[in-house]
């Protein structure tokens, strides 16, 4: 049985339907990567799933209970949320930022109970941050800072993790590091949704891919079944060649053409090599 379920969710902001009848069930133990172009409604859908945005119609259920009815702290103990990373207002220590993951339990960075402290240490260690815990976050690299935010989410001991572009602005190796952490979270029994822009990265780590465009969920399913050239064209307006290795892990995507793109004569043409 799926445990965090978006049921026929529509969200209208003004006259515009940013999400249109999206249904997405997330089970414990699985990682769903949500793909789609800018403005597809990905962020609105996941914000509805964590109770920060009320659907105009439809509902979101967490183990059968409507998230819109749950108080913020109760919800935070069960769903961890990583919004697109923005700079912290203050250069706090890495450990203190991770400790904020225990906020919903009544803790704060300077007042951690034994259980809170243990959860913080565990999260720091999982994310390979134990040595950096005392450092100010403004002295960390982008990859380290991204791991601090993942650790903050893990420290909450929530069953679900919803992450909005957790690998934005990271180099390829740091992207894989962060995705591996989220993959491990799912393997340990957590349910995760990750908004990504790199379909190949998504195919490598996700159990299921969800494709979104114009507020609609076009397809949800295993990468091998859903990541096809036709879908790629439908979602991104790109002509691509997609090859999946025999073992089914990941995919190679080669962009062949950008139909109807504004042309710059000086730019090299995209040709299959």
């Amino acid at each position: 049985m799926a445990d965090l379920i978006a049921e026929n969710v529509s969200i209208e902001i003004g006259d515009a339907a940013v999400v249109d009848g999206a249904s997405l069930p997330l089970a414990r133990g699985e990682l769903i990567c949500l793909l789609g172009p800018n403005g597809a409604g990905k962020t609105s859908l996941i914000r509805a799933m964590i109770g920060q945005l009320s659907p105009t119609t439809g509902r979101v259920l967490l183990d059968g209970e409507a998230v819109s009815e749950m108080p913020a702290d109760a919800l935070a103990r069960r769903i961890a949320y990583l919004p697109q990373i923005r700079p912290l207002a203050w250069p706090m220590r890495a450990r203190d930022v991770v400790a904020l993951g225990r906020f919903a339990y009544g803790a704060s960075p300077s007042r951690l109970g034994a259980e809170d402290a243990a959860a913080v240490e565990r999260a720091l260690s999982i994310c390979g941050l134990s040595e950096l815990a005392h450092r100010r976050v403004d002295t960390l690299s982008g990859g380290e800072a991204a791991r601090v935010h993942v650790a903050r989410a893990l420290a909450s001991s929530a069953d679900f993790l919803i992450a909005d572009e957790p690998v934005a602005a990271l180099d390829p190796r740091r992207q894989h590091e962060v995705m591996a952490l989220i993959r491990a979270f799912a393997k340990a029994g957590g349910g995760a949704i990750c908004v990504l822009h790199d379909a190949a990265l998504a195919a490598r780590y996700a159990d299921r891919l969800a494709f979104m465009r114009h507020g609609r969920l076009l397809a949800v399913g295993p990468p091998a079944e859903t990541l096809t050239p036709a879908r790629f064209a439908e979602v991104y307006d790109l002509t691509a060649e997609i090859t999946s290795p025999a073992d089914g892990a990941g995919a190679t995507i080669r962009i062949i053409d950008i139909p109807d793109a504004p042309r710059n004569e000086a730019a090299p043409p995209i040709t299959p090599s």
Partner: protein
Amino acid sequence: MKTTAQTTATPVTALKDARLVLSLAGAGATLVFAACLLGSTPLPAARVLAGLFGVGPEADEIIVQTIRLPRALAAYAVGAALGASGAALQGLFRNPLAEPGVLGVSATASLFSATAIYFGLADAFAALTPIAAVAGALVATGFLSLAAVRTRSITTLILVGVGLSAFAGAMMALLLNLAPHPFSLADLVNWSLGSVANRSLDDILLAGPFMAVGTAVLLAYGRGLSALALGEEAARGIGLDVARQRLAIVAGAGLAAGGSVALAGAVGFVGIVAPHLVRARVDHDPERTLVPSALLGGAILVAADIAIRLAPTASELKLGVAAALIGAPAFVLIALERRGVDG
């Protein structure tokens, strides 16, 4: 101290914070005592001490307990309320330049209380001055938090505060122009420049409860300020009721800053300087910034009040003028230090 291995952060942090709080409180008490040594009648330290505890001659007791101590305590209370309000508003607005003075809260509060005085309402009912000041501060903080929801840009918000400040200043000038006789003119000047000269224990008792309740509210909601370091969206995600947090800080800062204006008029910049000096010593944790900022703010204003009495000026400088002389350059320096983060 920072590089030592720590199994859990809390005990080390708590010890460090306790040491900081105790030394700041000690410095504050010492300064208050030092302020009691100053006055037109020279009194040696021993007689001041005896006067404080009511064991000396009655004349000493009257001088110390009804003249010198209230002035020092007023400066301390005002500084503490402003230090806490500054630290809390900075946490709420995620910007080290937010402060009751800069955001126009103090100016609006002093405009309201000056209006109460101008129309003779304060003569009819003494408590109206602090109530008017607090009302003005709440109007300003409430307006700012509405603007904050609307703009989302902190820079814009500070500009709104600057506008509010200018408007309140212009209204104040209008009152001055229309002042019926020179006596009320001097009174109004006092309000806009800020001073704790000639404050009595009654004045403190009138404004004190507003400052105390406001500061208590700010301390009670300190935890949420740490959460807001992540930004509002993530703070909500970790379980913070953002609307309630905003309301509490707006109300707490309004009460504390309004009370301080009722007691001393508009004294600027303490709310910026105190948290700025404290922050690095509490690992930039907004919650842990609150108490030390209040204690340091109190100590700074008592020190400034001592300085203006020792300064060889023909007529005594106003406390608010001294605070701005030190605080305004600090404000500019902090603004220049900010590294391109528009939060």
